C-alpha cells in the first residue's frame, strides 16, 4: 500500500516503481563524460591521405601523431589500393548497399578494407535497428548459425562442470566457455569441461578463460580448443591499462595459431568508458577502432556487442541499436562474430527478450558469446542475457519465429544420461590419473542438481590441489584420452582425440569454424550466401522438426488421451430420457449442456468434474426456490445458443447454457443470442461456488428479481495462452457431434427406471 498518503500522484507511477525495470539505470548522452552512442562531437571526420603507397594521415591525425591504434590500423588494416575508392563513396550510399540484397557481401567486405574506423562508424549510423539486423543477416560470415555456452559453477566443482558441459553440448551449443571463482582452479576446470564436452555429441569446442599466458598453456596441453580472451581496447590508454598493445596481442594471436588453437578477440562498447579512457569519443567509433585493429592483427573473429560494457551502453539512448551496429561492423570486416548477448543488460525480462530477438532473427556465427547453460548464481562470468533458468524460453523463441538459434530441445532421459556419463567419465579420469577420489554420493548429488546449491561435491578449496597437480604434473589431453579409454569410455576417448586431431590440419583456424556431426563448417565451406528470399540459411525439415518439438507440445491424440483418463473417474451419470419438451413450471430453470458434455468430455478447463459442476448449479437453483431441469442441446455447441435454446424450453424463460469446458451463460428466452444476462467467459477461473451462485441467480430471475451478477475475479492471467490450444481441440469434438436437425434431449441423473 505504498503511496496511499501521496495524493498528488497517479498511483500507476507507484506500480511502475515496483517493476524490475526500475532497477535498471538510464543515462543521458553527455559526450564530455564519454557518454555518446553513435556520434560524439569529438569523433573525427573520416579521412585518409596516402603518399607513395603509405598511409600518412588517418581520421584527422597525421602520421607523427598516430597513437598505437592509428599506427596499427594504418600499417595493417588499410589497403592503400582500396582507400581512395572506398572513402570516396557517400556514407548513405554504402549504407544502402549494406541492406541491398543485390550487392554481394564480398563486394562490401572489399570496400571495408579501404575504410577507416570513423568511416565505418558513420556508415552504420545511417541504419535503423531493423536495417542493422537485416544487414547483419546478409553480412555475417558462416551460413549456419551457432551458439556458445557459459559452463561454470559457484564452487568450481569439476563434477558439475563435466555434467553441465555435457548437457550444454547436448543442447546444441557449439562452444563451451568456462572460467573459475578461484584462478588457481583453472586447470581443473579446463580438464572437467574437456571431459564433459567429449560426452555425447563430442565435437563442441571448449575454452577456459583466464590470464593470457596461462590460457595459452592450458590450450597447449590440449585442455582448450579455442581462446577468447584476446582483449582489444579502443583508446591507447585503455589498451595500456589492459596491459597490452596491438602488437603484443597480434603476437599472442599468432602464438595460438602456431599451437593449432582457434582464437578470437574480445572488445565492445563501453569498455573504454568503464576504464576511464574514452577521449570523449562515441562508443561506436571506439569499437570501430577496436575492430579495425582486430582485422589488422589477423585474428579470425571477435566477440563484441558490448560484452562487459553492454549494460552501460544499453543505459544510453539507442544503446541496444549500437550494440547490434558494432556486431555489423565486425562481420562487415570479415570477422567471425560471437555477437555479445552474454551479459544481463537489464533486470526486466521484457527488455531481455527484446534484446535477443533481432540477432536471433538475423542469425549469427555465435548468437551469444556465452549463454548461461547454468543457473544465474552459478555463472562466474556474471549472469548472461539468457541463463539456465530461461533456456526453455529461448527454445520457444526459436519455435515462435521459426529461426535457428543453435539450440535443440532437451530430452529428459537423454539429459540425465549424458550427465551420468560425464560425471562417471570424469571420476574415472580422476582415479586413473590419481587426481582425486570421488564418492557415489558426490556423483548422485551432481547428476540430479539443477545448480551448485543442490550439490554435495568438491568445494573450491578442494579443487585447488587437483588443479595444481594437473599443471605441475604436465597432464595433457592425451593423458585424458588414455585414461578414458582404459576405463571403458572409448567413445569419449575417440571424441576427445578427434578434437585434438584438428590441430594437425588447422582447418578450424579459418574464419567462423565450428563442428557439426564431426565435420567442420566455416565461412569457407559454408559461406553465408544470403541474397534475398529463399537464399541463405534455412532450416531443413529434420532440423525444424527438432527445433519445434519443445517440451509438452500438444497433439489431438495427447489431449484426447488425457480426457479419456477423466472418463474412468466418472462412470455414466447422465442418462437420456427422450426428447425434451417445453416446460410450464414458472420457476423452472433449464440447464442446457453441450453435445459432448459428460460423454466425451469430463472436466472443465478449470479442472472441475462435470458432475460437480451440475450439482453446484442444481443446488444453487434449488436453494433459491427454483426447479432445475437438464437437457442436452444437440444442434449447436455454442454457449450462447445452447443457453438461449435452454431458456426457450424453460417454463420460466430462464435457462443456463454450459459447455463441457465450463463456459456458462445465463439466458432469457426473449433476448438475442449474444445479449445474455450473465456470462462466465473465462472458464478456467470459474470455481464451483460461482456455478452455484449462477444457479441461484437464475432461480431469482424466475421470481422477477434482478440479482447482482456473479463476478469471477480475473487478475490478468494469459488465459488464452494457457488454455486455447487444448480447448480448440476439445471444442472441435463438441462441434463434430452437433446435428442441425437434432432435437434437445431430456437428461436425468439416474438410469431410466432406476
Amino acid at each position, binding site marked *: 500500500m505504498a503511496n496511499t498518503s501521496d495524493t498528488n500522484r497517479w498511483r500507476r507511477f507507484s506500480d511502475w516503481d515496483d517493476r524490475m525495470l526500475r532497477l535498471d539505470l538510464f543515462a543521458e548522452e553527455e559526450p564530455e563524460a564519454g557518454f555518446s552512442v553513435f556520434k560524439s562531437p569529438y569523433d573525427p571526420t573520416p579521412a585518409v591521405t596516402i603518399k607513395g603507397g603509405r598511409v600518412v594521415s588517418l581520421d584527422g591525425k597525421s602520421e607523427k601523431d598516430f597513437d*598505437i591504434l592509428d*599506427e*596499427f590500423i594504418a*600499417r*595493417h*588494416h588499410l589497403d592503400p589500393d582500396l582507400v581512395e575508392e572506398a572513402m570516396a563513396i557517400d556514407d548513405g550510399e554504402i549504407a544502402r548497399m549494406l541492406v541491398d540484397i543485390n550487392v554481394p557481401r*564480398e563486394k562490401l567486405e*572489399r570496400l571495408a*578494407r579501404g575504410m577507416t574506423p570513423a568511416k565505418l562508424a558513420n556508415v552504420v549510423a545511417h541504419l535503423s535497428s531493423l536495417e542493422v539486423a537485416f544487414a547483419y543477416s546478409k553480412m555475417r560470415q558462416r551460413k549456419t548459425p551457432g551458439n556458445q555456452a557459459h559452463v561454470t559453477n559457484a564452487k568450481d566443482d569439476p563434477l558439475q562442470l563435466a555434467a553441465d558441459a555435457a548437457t550444454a553440448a547436448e543442447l546444441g551449443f557449439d562452444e563451451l566457455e568456462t572460467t573459475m571463482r578461484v584462478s588457481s582452479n583453472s586447470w581443473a576446470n579446463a580438464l572437467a569441461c574437456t571431459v564433459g564436452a567429449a560426452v555425447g555429441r563430442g565435437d563442441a569446442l571448449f575454452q577456459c578463460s583466464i590470464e*593470457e*599466458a596461462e590460457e*595459452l598453456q592450458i590450450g597447449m596441453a*590440449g585442455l582448450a580448443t579455442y581462446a577468447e580472451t584476446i582483449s582489444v581496447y579502443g583508446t*591507447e590508454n585503455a589498451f*595500456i591499462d589492459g*596491459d*597490452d*598493445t596491438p*602488437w*603484443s596481442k*597480434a*603476437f*599472442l*594471436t*599468432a*602464438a595460438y*595459431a*602456431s*599451437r*593449432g588453437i582457434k582464437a578470437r578477440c574480445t572488445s565492445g562498447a563501453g569498455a573504454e568508458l568503464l576504464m576511464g579512457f574514452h577521449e570523449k569519443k562515441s562508443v561506436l567509433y571506439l569499437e570501430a577502432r577496436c575492430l579495425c585493429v582486430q*582485422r*589488422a*592483427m*589477423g*585474428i*579470425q573473429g571477435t566477440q563484441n556487442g558490448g560484452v562487459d560494457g553492454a549494460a552501460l551502453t544499453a543505459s544510453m539512448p539507442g544503446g541496444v541499436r549500437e550494440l547490434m551496429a558494432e556486431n555489423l561492423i565486425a562481420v562487415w570486416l*570479415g570477422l567471425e562474430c560471437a555477437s555479445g548477448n552474454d551479459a544481463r543488460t537489464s533486470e526486466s525480462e521484457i527488455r531481455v527478450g527484446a534484446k535477443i530477438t533481432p540477432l536471433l532473427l538475423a542469425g549469427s556465427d555465435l548468437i551469444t558469446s556465452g549463454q548461461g547453460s547454468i543457473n544465474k548464481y552459478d555463472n562466474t562470468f556474471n549472469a548472461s542475457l539468457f541463463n539456465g533458468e530461461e533456456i526453455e524460453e529461448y527454445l520457444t523463441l526459436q519455435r515462435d519465429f521459426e529461426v535457428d538459434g543453435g539450440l535443440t530441445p532437451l530430452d529428459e532421459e537423454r539429459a540425465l544420461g549424458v550427465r551420468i556419463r560425464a560425471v562417471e567419465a570424469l571420476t574415472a579420469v580422476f582415479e586413473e590419473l590419481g587426481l582425486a577420489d570421488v564418492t557415489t554420493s558426490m556423483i548422485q548429488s551432481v547428476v540430479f542438481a539443477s545448480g551448485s546449491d543442490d550439490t554435495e561435491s568438491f568445494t573450491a578449496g578442494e579443487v585447488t590441489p587437483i588443479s595444481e597437480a594437473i599443471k605441475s604434473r604436465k597432464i*595433457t*589431453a*592425451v593423458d585424458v584420452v*588414455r585414461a578414458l*579409454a582404459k576405463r571403458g569410455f572409448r567413445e569419449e*576417448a575417440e571424441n576427445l*582425440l578427434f578434437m585434438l*586431431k*584438428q*590441430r*594437425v*590440419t*588447422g*582447418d578450424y*583456424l*579459418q*574464419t567462423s569454424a565450428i563442428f557439426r556431426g564431426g*565435420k*567442420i563448417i*566455416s*565461412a*569457407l*565451406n559454408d559461406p553465408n550466401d544470403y541474397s534475398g528470399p529463399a537464399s541463405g540459411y534455412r532450416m531443413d525439415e529434420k532440423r525444424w522438426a527438432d527445433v519445434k518439438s519443445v517440451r509438452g507440445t500438444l497433439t489431438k491424440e495427447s489431449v484426447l488421451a488425457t480426457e479419456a483418463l477423466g472418463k474412468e473417474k466418472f462412470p455414466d451419470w447422465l442418462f437420456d430420457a427422450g426428447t425434451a419438451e417445453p416446460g410450464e413450471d414458472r420457476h423452472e430453470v433449464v440447464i442446457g449442456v453441450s453435445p459432448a458434455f459428460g460423454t466425451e468430455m469430463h472436466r472443465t478447463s478449470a479442472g472441475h468434474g462435470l458432475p460437480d459442476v451440475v450439482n453446484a448449479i442444481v443446488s444453487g437453483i434449488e436453494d433459491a426456490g427454483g426447479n432445475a431441469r437438464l437437457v442436452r442441446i444437440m444442434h449447436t455447441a455454442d454457449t450462447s445458443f445452447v443457453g438461449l435454446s435452454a431458456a426457450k424450453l424453460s417454463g420460466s424463460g430462464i435457462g443456463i447454457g454450459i459447455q463441457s469446458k465450463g463456459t456458462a451463460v445465463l439466458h432469457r428466452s426473449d433476448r438475442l443470442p449474444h445479449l445474455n444476462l450473465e456470462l462466465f467467459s473465462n472458464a478456467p477461473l470459474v470455481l464451483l461456488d460461482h456455478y452455484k451462485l449462477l444457479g441461484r441467480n437464475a432461480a431469482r430471475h424466475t421470481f422477477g428479481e434482478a440479482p447482482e451478477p456473479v463476478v469471477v475475479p480475473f487478475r490478468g492471467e494469459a488465459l488464452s495462452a494457457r488454455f486455447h490450444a487444448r480447448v480448440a481441440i476439445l471444442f472441435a469434438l463438441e462441434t463434430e457431434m452437433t446435428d442441425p436437425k437434432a432435437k434437445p434431449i431430456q437428461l436425468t441423473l439416474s438410469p431410466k427406471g432406476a
Partner: protein
Amino acid sequence: MSVKDLYPLAENAPDRVKTPTGKLLSDITLDAVLAGEVTAADLAITPEALHLQAEIALAGGRRTLAENFHRAAELVAIPQDVIMETYEMLRPGRADLEMLHAQADVLRSIYKAELLAKFIEEAATVYERRGIFEKRY
C-alpha cells in the same frame, strides 16, 4: 583447381598435412595413442600446414588472416618459454628499444623468423615514439 578447394584439408587433402613427426592424419587413432605410438608431440600443427592455410585464407580474400598464419608458421619452432618471454617484452613497460631489437635479432638469427622480427622492430619504433616503454610497476 583453386587452393580454396583443398579446404577442409582433413576432408579434401588429408595427404597434404602431416604431423610434426611425419605421421599421416590416418595414423592418429585411439589404438595408436594407447600403444604409445601417437603422443602429444604428434598432435600439433606444422609450418607447412599453416602456410597452406594462409594460402587458403588469402584465396578467400583474407590477407590479414593469412599474414597471421605466416607469422604463426614461424612461431611453431619457437619454444614456449621464448614465446612467452617475447610476448612479455611486447607488453607495455616491460622492455626498451634495445631489448626489443635484440629479441628481434634472436628470432631472426636462431629461428629464421623474419616476419616476426620485422613485426617486433615495427612495434619497437612505435613504442619509442609513444612512450610505451615507460615502466608501470
